[in-house]
């Protein structure tokens, strides 16, 4: 069970006109979250209107790239087992992602993680997370 998670190649994201900017930032290895200039809410996934107050006065803001695991699951039915997770970012919102560079049984809820990008299957790289702090290595 201490086997490392395999190198799974994520499917290519399919941006819409609303999310081109998010994925262009990902090309530069930046993780962006939504920020409402009306009510101040930080949110994920990014969208043109604030999901709290419906203001269109919104923009993208770079996340610092640290967070903690809110929940996770190892997909064993796949050829290469992989870890799906929700990571709560330092800025507040929780996002779906993968945990990488980690032995399967070392993942735990509450574990600190830091941002890395992995190449997708022909699209923009996608933001994933690896163990951080004392959990790293």
């Amino acid at each position: 069970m201490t086997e490392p998670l395999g190198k799974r190649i994520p499917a290519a994201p399919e941006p819409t006109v609303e999310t081109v900017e998010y994925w262009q930032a990902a090309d530069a290895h930046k993780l962006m979250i939504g920020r409402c200039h009306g009510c101040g809410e930080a949110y994920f996934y990014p969208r043109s209107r604030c999901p709290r107050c419906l203001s269109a006065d919104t923009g993208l803001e770079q996340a610092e790239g640290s967070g903690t695991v809110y929940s996770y699951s190892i997909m064993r039915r796949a050829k290469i087992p992989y870890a799906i997770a929700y990571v709560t970012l330092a800025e507040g919102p929780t996002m779906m992602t993968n945990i990488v560079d980690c032995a399967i049984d070392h993942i735990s809820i509450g574990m600190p993680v830091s941002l890395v990008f992995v190449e997708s299957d022909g699209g923009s790289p996608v933001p994933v997370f690896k163990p951080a702090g004392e959990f790293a290595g």
Partner: protein
Amino acid sequence: MSIRNQACIAGIYEHPTRNAADISLAALHGDVIAGALADAGLDKGDVDGFFCDSDAPGLGALSMLDYLGMRVRHVEASESGGATYLSQVAHAAEAIAAGKMKVAVISMAGRPRADAAAGGVAPRPFPPSTPDLQFELPYGAELVNEYALAAMRHMYEYGTTAEQLAWVKVAASHHAQHNPLAMLPKVVTVEDVLGSPMIADPLHRMDCCIVSDGGGAIVVVSPDVAASLKQPVVKVLGHGEAVKHQNGGQIDLTFSAAAYSGADAFAEAGVTPSDIDYASIYDSFTITVITQLEDLGFCAKGDGGRFVADGGLISGVGRLPVNTDGGGLCNNHPGYRGGMTKIIEAVRQLRGQAAPQVQVKNCRLALAQAMGGSLGTRHAAATLILERH
């Protein structure tokens, strides 16, 4: 205005097939509609309302009404996944109360097994314009590992165990042995569930519902029509429906939209969970049942694992008889949608027409609960409370 006592369920029909390789989707709808009308003792010409979901063939209700040669005054093709039909029973009751119709038929059918055998694609091919999926599909998010995220968090917060999850499946199998149509009629143990292959931690294969073809239909009528029909009358007492989602990233996977839909349904019905004699609880996965039982108030939040353990859901044995047809875990799960069969078994219990070994004695009040979508991301929930007349 309330729908309490404004409408009755007068006809039900569950398609006997579990593999519809030689039955088209439209024909499945035709079969279940004809079956439910016959059960009610009504004719096609009596029907003046039609309800279906977005999986109905062609243009949905338009194509189906053409296929059936039917003319109605009230049409609804709505979509909240497997919860659709519970909401449609209530919407039909609302339209009946408003005088818009007297006899509604609600139809669902699906043939994912036949489609897969014919080279069909994975379920639910959402269009790329779907705003959320580009942030989820690259990570390999599927229904099973999304529900697993909720299960894992439930275990972390409340100490729920894999053994407790397994008890949901064990209870379903105890019921399924008495259902000659059940796909998985063999009684299983907690050890069997824990010994089945891990699919997505902490969910084993036996924590997951089956995939089947088939469908079902329900006839909802006004009380005056119901009074003249042959089947025992089942009254619609209360309903609630709600959607829960990621909320912009403020995510809490420990509860479902059943917390909202259940509260509304109990308030409308004027009853409490302890009044319920039988419950159909959507069982896409074992965690789905535990979460909804808590959210509906059958036990405190976090106590769901203990509530279902040691046969807690087995009819005649446990605290609350749940899914006495074997449910989606053992009987059938047509079209990846569990709600229709949930209503049908609740009506059977209220009529006294469940399998004798699982029939709840003097069953007066039943609850049906369904969920559509994913507990781990976004889902609809709907609750119906029904009463024997």
